């Protein structure tokens, strides 16, 4: 068998693939966080719980209503996004005048509630979710075996990330959003309904988390705790990338997924902590993050 640096290529590429998969989720989730932070100036601690809700939504649709994966991809983000809109209207809205830290505390409390409720209902064991029939099986690439579903996840998340980047950076709607980030009062004065824009932005960010949750359901099991630890890693990703740029969030997400995958090959003991170590190093060298600007 071929080896690279004393590691079998099979294992190396296998971990690289897992790294890219994890990176897809890091990218999608940190993108949602960055979009929300840009306009609302809060860190959405509920993001992990909303990702979990997306996965559960898909599970419900399949097991209770017989609605398959492809419809779930569309329905879950809308449903969970609508739930996000409700939260923004009822609660987060009241905090805009206060210190941003209160937003973090509120969303942390909401995450505890949501996770607690799901755990009471479903326990801590995971529920299985089948890979959709169209994407079952895989392709032997010669140097490794590539399951179709995993390839799909990487491609789909890249497409979604790029589409989001395009909308925000290149369209009229996106220019409103960016202007709202810079100076909401002025944008309001120009006749844009800023509060509604803020609400919808939150809904969109939450929808991205739910979309990631649906895509994650067949790979990881559907589990009430699936978002709790993940969100902390995503926070580290966000700190490393800096929240200034959309493209930065995407690149950092995929990059760190790959770094984590490689660490699993060469030094497995550190695979849980490598992202946090990278964060510490980046903070020492470039406190604003790789793509960020210090405010």
């Amino acid at each position, binding site marked *: 068998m071929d080896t690279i640096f004393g590691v079998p290529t099979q294992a190396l590429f296998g971990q690289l693939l897992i790294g890219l998969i994890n990176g897809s989720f890091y990218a999608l989730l940190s993108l949602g966080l960055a979009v929300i932070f840009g306009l609302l100036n809060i860190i959405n601690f509920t993001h992990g719980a909303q990702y979990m809700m997306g996965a559960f939504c898909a599970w419900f649709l399949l097991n209770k209503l017989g609605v398959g994966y492809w419809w779930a991809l569309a329905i879950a983000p809308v449903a969970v996004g609508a739930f996000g809109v409700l939260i923004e209207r009822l609660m987060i809205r009241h905090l805009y005048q206060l210190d941003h830290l209160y937003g973090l505390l509120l969303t942390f*409390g909401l995450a505890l509630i949501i996770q607690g409720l799901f755990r009471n209902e479903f326990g801590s064991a995971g529920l299985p979710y089948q890979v959709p029939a169209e994407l079952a099986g895989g392709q032997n690439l010669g140097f490794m075996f590539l399951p179709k579903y995993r390839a799909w996840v990487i491609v789909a998340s890249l497409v979604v990330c790029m589409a989001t980047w395009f909308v925000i950076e290149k369209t009229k709607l996106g220019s409103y959003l960016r202007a709202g980030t810079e100076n909401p009062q002025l944008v309001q004065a120009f006749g844009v309904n800023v509060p509604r824009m803020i609400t919808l932005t939150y809904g969109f960010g939450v929808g991205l988390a739910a979309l990631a949750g649906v895509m994650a359901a067949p790979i990881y099991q559907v589990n009430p705790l699936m978002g709790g630890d993940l969100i902390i890693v995503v926070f580290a990703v966000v700190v490393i990338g800096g929240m200034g740029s959309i493209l930065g969030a995407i690149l950092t997400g995929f990059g760190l997924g790959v770094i984590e995958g490689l660490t699993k090959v060469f030094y497995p003991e550190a695979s849980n902590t490598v992202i946090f170590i990278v964060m510490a190093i980046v903070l020492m060298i470039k406190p604003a993050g790789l793509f960020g600007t210090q405010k």
Partner: protein
Amino acid sequence: MTDTSQPSADAPARAANLRHQTVAFAALGAFFVAAPLLMYPIFLMKVMCFALFAAAFNLLIGYVGLLSFGHAMFLATGGYLSAHAAKVWGLPPEMAILTGTATAAVLGLAAGLIAIRRQGIYFAMITLALSQMVFFFYLQTPFTHGEDGIQAVPRGMLFGLVDLSNVWAMYFFVFAVTGAGLLLIYRIVHSPFGQVLQAIRENEQRAISLGYRTDRYKLLAFVLSAALAGLAGATKALVFQLASLTDAHWSMSGEVVLMTLLGGLGTVFGPVVGAFVLLGMENYLAQLGSWVTVVQGVIFVICVLTFRRGVIGELGQLIKKPL
């Protein structure tokens, strides 16, 4: 990030502040001396340890305006090191606690150097991430015994004289440690150093322009807070004769935030009240099992939306004096 009014700087007002706070301190002490008549001493010791933990956390959020979402790492470090020192190295309790506290302080220095490079929300995320890293370290390193934790930690003979396996000896030892810790925090807050910290909280740019090296002040405050949190963890490990992963988990960091928020951010006595109320509630709700998380979440939401001053903050507002 507090709504509470600050003590004014002129001397007579400050003397008055100190007087009623002395009364409050005495009342608090009297309460914990008398409370074992009505409540389990183990429960009260737990409350005191967490009161110190929350007060240490409050030193950062309440007086420097830094929200640490990773204080569990210091509690756990204090606990693990003191348990290890007492059990494996056979150190007497005072040395074991000192070991735990000192290690937490060193960790605080390392974490502080990284975390104070960013403010506000980033500070919270960085401390949370660092604490998660420490969690994984304790999960994997052999001396903590993973999921089992360090069990059957001997309480030992304090200064070679007092046998801490006696519940009352232990009770008043914890009482003394917590009391000393709270007084130290009180002293820090009311020292010139504490005044600079509060100036940094109010307006860091202005503090810098006045010539203060705010990073150093923030770092020292962070190390002090970490050491005191470590002290709480070290003492707690001796009380329960156990150091476990629960203390290192991020939910513990969330719990201390909640205690302080509920009691009142930036108040001297809020963390004590918050710890008492929250632990008491958890005791009563124990049979509800995992519903405790939901209840905690609900309290978080209510506090943030309608009750931002907390119990003691509201009380202080009522008597128009900071508590």
